[in-house]
């Protein structure tokens, strides 16, 4: 067997259990071929199941050891790794749990996976220097209506159907989490300095952040807020939120018509 078919046969054995590779293996007096090849086959799935367990401790805690092992094996079989690092192996786990029965009937699982993936993304997202709240004072009043914002690469806004982050925090403290309550809402995940943070977003802040992250300007952010509260208070609320975002290190730059800063 030449090199290429040999590697394909080996991969076929690891991924699908095809046995063509057996003919290429030299018999050993130590152990039979299936035992020896089995070291690789067992290692392949065990390694990836372990990666998922390490990267998704919250999903593992919710599902329980046994159920997690089962779902991880199904995921491993359905999602071969295409990245150079195992770091990206679980990227599709949330989508898998959202769509595949029986897990699709358990929304907290997919929510937990999405939340943990966001934490991981924020953890090693690109570095960028955030602006402080003092930046607001430096902006001339005419700049405000067209003001847009650049966000730190770690910032993630995610919509969840359950309070999975609360269960994550219980699990992270070493305790057994309760089943997360059904409680639709938006969450913010970001990194401040080297520390990953998260918090729940009120519906009006979620709408404002969605607009701002989409590159819409201050006026449009006010319009988004006006759908959640008194129109005459929208600009005041928007300015308050922007101060909050600056204080939390979410914003790395602003620009407005006619000028760039930051």
């Amino acid at each position, binding site marked *: *067997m*030449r*090199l*290429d078919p*040999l*590697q*394909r046969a*080996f*991969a076929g054995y*690891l*991924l699908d259990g095809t046995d063509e590779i057996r*003919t*290429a*293996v*030299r018999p*050993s*007096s*130590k*152990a039979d*071929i299936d*035992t*020896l*090849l089995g*070291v*690789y086959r067992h*290692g*392949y799935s065990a*390694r*990836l199941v372990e990666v998922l367990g390490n990267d998704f401790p919250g999903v593992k805690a919710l599902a329980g050891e046994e159920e997690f092992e089962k779902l991880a094996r199904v995921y491993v079989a359905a999602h*071969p*790794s*295409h*990245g*150079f*690092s*195992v*770091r990206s*192996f679980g990227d599709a786990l949330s989508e898998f749990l959202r769509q595949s029965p029986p897990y699709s009937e358990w929304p907290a699982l997919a929510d937990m996976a999405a939340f943990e993936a966001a934490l991981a993304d*924020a*953890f*090693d*997202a*690109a*570095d960028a220097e955030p602006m402080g709240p003092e930046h607001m004072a430096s902006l001339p009043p005419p700049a405000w209506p067209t003001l847009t914002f650049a966000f730190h*690469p*770690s910032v993630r806004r995610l919509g969840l159907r359950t309070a999975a982050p609360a269960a994550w925090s219980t699990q992270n403290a070493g305790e057994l989490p309760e089943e997360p309550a059904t409680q639709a809402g938006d969450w913010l995940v970001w*990194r401040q300095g*080297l520390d990953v943070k998260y918090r729940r977003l009120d519906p009006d802040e979620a709408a404002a952040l969605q607009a701002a992250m989409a590159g819409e300007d201050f006026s449009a952010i006010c319009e988004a807020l006006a759908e959640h509260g008194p129109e005459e208070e929208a600009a005041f609320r928007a300015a308050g939120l922007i101060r909050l975002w600056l204080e939390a290190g979410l914003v790395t730059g602003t620009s407005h018509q006619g000028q760039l800063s930051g």
Partner: protein
Amino acid sequence: MTSSLGFGLGLRPVHYPEIFEGSPRVDWFEAISENYMVPGGRPLHALMRVRERWSVVLHGVSLSIGSTDPLDEDYLGRLKALADRVEPVWISDHLCWTGVSGINLHDLLPLPYTEEALGHVVERVLRVQERLGRHILLENVSSYVTFAQSAVPEWEFLAEVARRADCLLLLDVNNVYVSAFNHEFDPLAYLDAIPGERVRQIHLAGHENNGTHIIDTHDHPVIDPVWSLYAEAIRRFGPVATMIERDDRIPPLSELESELDRARAVASQALKSRRAA
């Protein structure tokens, strides 16, 4: 020949507090390249902090030098960028393949030792060295099967790759021991065939013996027969930079420092008998 780095450890995040807050008796660290090929945040911050006080070498697990898939240019670009930032003393990876058809199997899989594989690996090592602008170190892996069509033993294949591609070697003494046990060859014959002037680094590790075969698990201390084989390697190759790898059931750093002290003692004894010989 460059002077030896001394005695190092694999850099593991669980040890960061002990590394940053203490003064571990470690001469250098080996970082797993892929763990730091990320955009930013704590991993790179920690690695650069280590780099301020120690020499660092980069050790990859995804180069897949023996795969019939094309070389991953994106991977090489990121590795080069990491190396430009970290300025490692050297970069190593394994003589193996880790995936095919675009799928990463995340394992160090054995090659058949054929003329075809030799030409393939040599050509790719040359291209990788060109791309990285430096010689790389290739490491021998542990294996559980050998292939019927292999024309030469692993040690001859490894030595020939190194000669033809003009690359350097990372000799994993534990892997020699594991493969010698699994495939019933004499580990000293392996050492005798290795071109000593190319050996820049030695790995030591523990493993799991299942009776019929040994699995390279890196979750135990180094065993006595591997220490003996290490002494034989130092006797042959001189004061080569040596480190201990631990990837599972990772003990406190102090425990690995003690194990490293044993490496220092074994190497020093072996060097005495090398000079006496």
